[in-house]
C-alpha cells in the first residue's frame, strides 16, 4: 500500500487566492453570459428555459464557492479553537453513521462502524462533526453502487484514529492525495465542489492538532483521521 499525508500544515499559498478568484470569475462569467443571451437573442422557449436553469446553477455554484471559500479561509486563519470541550468520538461517529445509513440503501452502499473502546476527544464537537460529514459525504457521493464504507475507531496512548475504508470508489487512485488541496486542478477527476469541502475537512483536523492520511489500496482505499489525545483521553 502506498501512503501519503494529505499535505498537513502546509502554509496557505497564494495559489489558493488565484484559483479561488478564477473559480469565482468563471461562475460570474457564466451568469453574465446567460443574462446577455436571454436579453439579446431571439431564442426559443426551450433554449431560454435551459439557459435560465444554467444561470441558476451558476448562481448556486457561486454561493457554494463563497461559503466554502470563506469557511476554509476562516479555519486556516483563525487562531486557537474557540470551543474545546470533551465529547465521545464514538457517539459522534455513530450518530453520523446512522444518518448516512438511512440514505445509503438507495444506492446499495453499506455503512458499518466499529470501535475498540470508548474515546473521549477534546475539541469542537460541531467542527469535528462537520469534518466527518464532509469526508463521508464526499466518499458516499463518489462510491459506486454496491460499494462499502467502513469506519473503524482505534486508539494508542497518544492518538485516536478513525480509519474510513472505501471500496468501489470512483475517484482514481492517483488523484487521492490531491483531493484535499482546495480547488486543485492537478487532479484528473474533477470533484463537484472543486475539493473545497475536503480542504475544509483537512483544515478542521489540523486545527485540532491532527491530520488526514490517505492509504491507497488495490480494492479498498483508506482515509485515516488522526487526533492527538490529551491526558487520559
Amino acid at each position, binding site marked *: 500500500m502506498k501512503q501519503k499525508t494529505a499535505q498537513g500544515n502546509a502554509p496557505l499559498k497564494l495559489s489558493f487566492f*488565484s*484559483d479561488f*478568484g*478564477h*473559480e469565482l*470569475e*468563471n*461562475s*460570474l*462569467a*457564466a451568469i*453574465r*453570459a*446567460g443574462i*446577455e*443571451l436571454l436579453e*439579446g*437573442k431571439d*431564442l426559443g422557449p426551450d*433554449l431560454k428555459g*435551459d*439557459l435560465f436553469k*444554467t444561470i441558476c*446553477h*451558476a448562481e448556486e*455554484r457561486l454561493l457554494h464557492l463563497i461559503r466554502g471559500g470563506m469557511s476554509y479561509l476562516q479555519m486556516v486563519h483563525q487562531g486557537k479553537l474557540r470551543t474545546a470541550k470533551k465529547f465521545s468520538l464514538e457517539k459522534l461517529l455513530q450518530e453520523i453513521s446512522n444518518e448516512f445509513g438511512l440514505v445509503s440503501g438507495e444506492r446499495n452502499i453499506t455503512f458499518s462502524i466499529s470501535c475498540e473502546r470508548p474515546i473521549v476527544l477534546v475539541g469542537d464537537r460541531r467542527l469535528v462533526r462537520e469534518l466527518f460529514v464532509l469526508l463521508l459525504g464526499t466518499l458516499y457521493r463518489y462510491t459506486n453502487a454496491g460499494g462499502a464504507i467502513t469506519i473503524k475507531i482505534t486508539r494508542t496512548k497518544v492518538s485516536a484514529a478513525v480509519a474510513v475504508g472505501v471500496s468501489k470508489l470512483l475517484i482514481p487512485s492517483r488523484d487521492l492525495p490531491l483531493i484535499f488541496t482546495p480547488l486543485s*486542478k*492537478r*487532479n*484528473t*477527476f*474533477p470533484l463537484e465542489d472543486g475539493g473545497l469541502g475536503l480542504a475544509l475537512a483537512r483544515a478542521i483536523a489540523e486545527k485540532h492538532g491532527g491530520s488526514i492520511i490517505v492509504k491507497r489500496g488495490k480494492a479498498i482505499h483508506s482515509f485515516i483521521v488522526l487526533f492527538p489525545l490529551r491526558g487520559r483521553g
Partner: protein
Amino acid sequence: MKKKLLLIEDNPLLITMYETAFESSGFEVVSATDGKTGIARAKEEKPDVVVLDLLMPGMDGFTVLGELKKDKATKKAKAVILTAMVEKKEEEKGRLLGADEFLAKSELTLSQIVERISALAYS
C-alpha cells in the same frame, strides 16, 4: 461556409453559454472539458479555431496549446486563450506558444468575445 470552433473549457456552465452564443453566430461548435480530450478532439475534428481556458484539470491550457502547435494536424488552427483573469506574463507566455488572441472573460461581454473570435476566424 461555417467555421468550426473547438471549445476546451472545464466549466460546464460556461460551455453551455459559449456554445449557444457561437452557434447562434454561425459557428459549428464542438467542445471538450479537459485538455487531453481537447487535443484528441482537435485531431479528429480539425477545427478552424480553438478556444481554450488556462486552468483545467489534468493538463493546463498552455500545455494543450503547446501540443496543438507541435502537431501537423492541428497547428494551423487559430488559437484563442479565454481565461478568467489575465496577467501580463501569462499573456506573453500564451503569445509565445502561438496564441492569436488572449481574452479575459471578466473584461469582455459575451458579444464582444464572439465578435473578437469571429473577426479572427474569418480574417
